[in-house]
């Protein structure tokens, strides 16, 4: 059996095949529950996809994402089913593919421990902050410098600067919350992986939204598209900008939730999946007990 065939087969064990429909149901139900129950302007419809990707591998993740949107679009009755979601199956597949890569790199592995890990996490956050500040100082010193460094028109200077700040602030807040809740340095990497996934997802979904739906999706993010178009942006430009603002936020929160869930699952359960060895955390003798989360989001140790 060739290496490639073995790599593919390894990702589709019976356990993964059972996990995939569960993950698809989680994608569909949780997305609706968070949007309707908490009325938040994020999608959270790829938790299952990222979970499968991280635990099983890129192909299993991509297939889960792709099938999620097709089933959501074509095989479920209204009002659960929504035919408008189906064209974004390509984006969902890319999200699953990336999650599989992050899983194989071990980015979602909990790295809990004593004071050493917390110190390492603090250093990592400071380094990320310093890198962000350096980038900000270099790229956004003046509109002219922005144009020469990035090649983007100077008229986009203010918008781009606000995007950068919002996304970086969201990243730092999420990492801080994750560190507070779990005292786990791995959050820095997992939420960072979510940030990259979000940027790629925005780039992939912008042409779909522009061509199929004229740039809108019927959700809360349409207001952002409208604001950019009112500012004179074209169809594709406005859709891409909306995606670059919403998707990194959404995928960072999604990665944060998946990281939390994986860290709370039993080591025996996680290690039975193809990427389990790369995803299980440090030995339980070292790791502190996972805190319970109250409905207000506060920890109860």
């Amino acid at each position: 059996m060739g290496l490639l065939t073995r790599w593919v087969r390894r990702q589709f064990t019976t356990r993964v095949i059972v996990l995939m429909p569960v993950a698809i149901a989680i994608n569909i139900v949780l997305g609706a529950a968070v949007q309707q129950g908490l009325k938040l302007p994020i999608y959270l419809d790829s938790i299952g996809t990222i979970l499968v990707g991280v635990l099983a591998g890129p192909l299993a993740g991509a297939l889960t994402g792709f099938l999620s949107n097709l089933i959501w679009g074509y095989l479920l009755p209204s009002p659960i089913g929504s035919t408008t979601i189906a064209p974004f199956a390509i984006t969902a597949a890319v999200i699953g593919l990336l999650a599989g890569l992050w899983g194989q790199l071990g980015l979602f592995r909990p790295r809990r421990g004593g004071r050493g890990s917390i110190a390492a996490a603090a250093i990592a956050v400071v380094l990320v902050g310093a890198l962000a500040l350096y980038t900000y100082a270099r790229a956004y010193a003046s509109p002219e410098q922005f144009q020469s460094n990035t090649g983007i028109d100077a008229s986009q200077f203010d918008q781009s600067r606000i995007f950068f700040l919002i996304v970086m602030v969201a990243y730092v807040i999420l990492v801080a919350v994750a560190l507070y809740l779990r005292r786990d340095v791995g959050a820095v990497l997992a939420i960072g992986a979510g940030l990259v996934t979000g940027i790629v997802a925005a780039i992939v979904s912008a042409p779909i939204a522009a061509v199929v739906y004229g740039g809108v999706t019927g959700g809360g993010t349409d207001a952002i598209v409208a604001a950019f178009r009112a500012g004179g942006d074209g169809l594709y430009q406005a859709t891409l900008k909306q995606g670059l603002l919403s998707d990194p936020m959404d995928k960072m929160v999604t990665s944060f939730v998946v990281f939390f869930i994986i860290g709370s699952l039993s080591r025996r359960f996680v290690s039975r999946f193809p990427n389990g060895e790369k995803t299980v955390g440090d030995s339980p003798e070292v790791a502190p007990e996972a805190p319970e989360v109250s409905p207000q989001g506060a920890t109860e140790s």
Partner: protein
Amino acid sequence: MPVAAAADPGLPDYVARQPRGFYRSVNPGTKLAVAALEVVAAFLLPGWVGPLLVLAIVFATAAAARRLRGLATIALATSPIVGSILLINLFLLPGASDPIARLGPLAPTWSGLWFGLQTVARLISFSLAIGLVYLTTAVDDLLADLARRGLGRRAIFVVGAAVQMVPGTIERAAEIVDAQRSRGMDTEGRIWRRARGVLPMAAPIVFGALTEVEERTMALEARAFSAPGRQTLLRVPADGPADRVLRWAAILALVAIVALRATGRLG
């Protein structure tokens, strides 16, 4: 390739019975091919021709198959996105300079209205073309037909199990949301207070769903799910000569439209 056993006279009627009625009795694979042609036509035929032609065919088929009410429900479900498309394009179409009226700082334009209506027509025809397949085909029949055409048992299981699992998960999610609200989760306050509810809402839903994974895995393995060898299908949807002619005609028309569009002959 799985072996069909539907011709077995010993099968009970509820297994061997084929769907009846106009369009409902058409083979699921054929309906998928027709829907694919309609989607491509709606987007690639120029101007209003594509969407209006598709809408006419879909509505005529739905009326003959007595599925107009279901089609109306699907059309209604698209109303949020339809509203968004119309409003945003009416007021904010880049480069539009033919105002219908002046409403203070706002100026709806004819070009925006035209572009919005055309996008809506495409979107609705695309949604209804796919929706008609759903309304006239049982998911089991679709999966059985795909299995007969060679789709693996693993893919069939994933799709079938996901469709079955969603209603139960929705019920469980509603119970969890109510339970967390009763424990003080804020669903109406400021955004940061609502955002704090993400983990308390998501974690129980996901953990609850994941508890079934081990049991289901063992159940499948106990039934030789991974065993090699050919499968026997109990139920095989009919696929007569008329089905095959319609299916190939749809596929050829689809290829022709894509080729004509790619060579610029469709404008």
